[in-house]
C-alpha cells in the first residue's frame, strides 16, 4: 500500500516538475522561478480608492532624496503614473 502511495506521489512530483519547466521555459528556469522569484512575488493589496503609500526615493545621482508624495500634483490637478521595474 505504501509503495502505491509513494508511486503516486512520485508521479505527481514529476508532473509538477515537468509542468513548471514547460511554464518557465526550462528546468533551470523553473528552479530560478521557485528559488528567486516566488519569495518576492506578492499579489498586492492596493486597490482603487486606497490612499497611495509614501516612500522615500533617491535621485539618479544618489545625492538627493524625495518622496513619492512629493510628486503628487494636488494643486495642478494632474494624476501621477508610477511605473515600478528594473533593468534585468
Amino acid at each position: 500500500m505504501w509503495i502505491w502511495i509513494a508511486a503516486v506521489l512520485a508521479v505527481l512530483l514529476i508532473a509538477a516538475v515537468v509542468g513548471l519547466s514547460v511554464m518557465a521555459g526550462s528546468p533551470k528556469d523553473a528552479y530560478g522561478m521557485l528559488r528567486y522569484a516566488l519569495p518576492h512575488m506578492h499579489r498586492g493589496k492596493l486597490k482603487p480608492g486606497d490612499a497611495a503609500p509614501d516612500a522615500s526615493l533617491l535621485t539618479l545621482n544618489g545625492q538627493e532624496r524625495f518622496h513619492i508624495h512629493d510628486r503628487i500634483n494636488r494643486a495642478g490637478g494632474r494624476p501621477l503614473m508610477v511605473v515600478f521595474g528594473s533593468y534585468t
Partner: protein
Amino acid sequence: MQIYNDYKDHADFLTVYVREAHPTDEWQMKSNVKEDVCYAQPKTLEQRIAIANDFVQRQKYPVPFGIDDMTNAANDAYSAWPERIYIIDEQGKIAYAGGMGPFNYHPEEARAWLAARYGEVKHDPPMPPYRESDG
C-alpha cells in the same frame, strides 16, 4: 515610453527602480544575455544606483526617475516586484492598480485610463520596410 510622450502634457510620470528581476547571480534569462543586460543583484546602494544610471543612459530613458533604496520600502509598500503600474490621482488615492508583472503587467490598461480622461492619442501605423522591388 510612448504613454509618457503621449500624455506628459496632462499627467505626471515617475519611474521607480526596484531590486533586479533577473540578475546574473539569481534567475538570469537567456534574453538578458542576448541583449547584454547582465548585472548581479546589487548588494549596495551604490551598485543599484550604477545599474539605474546604466539603464537610463543605454535606453535614453526620458521619464522622471527615482531609486528605491536598499530597504526596498517603495517596493514593499506597492508590492512592486518585478514590475507594476499604478496611477495616483490628485487627492493621493490609487486610481489604477495594475497587476503583477510580467503576465499581469498591462500598460495598455493605464493608457486606457488616461485616454478615458484626456482622450485617445492615435499613431500612424509604422511604414513597411523599403524593398528594391517596390521601385
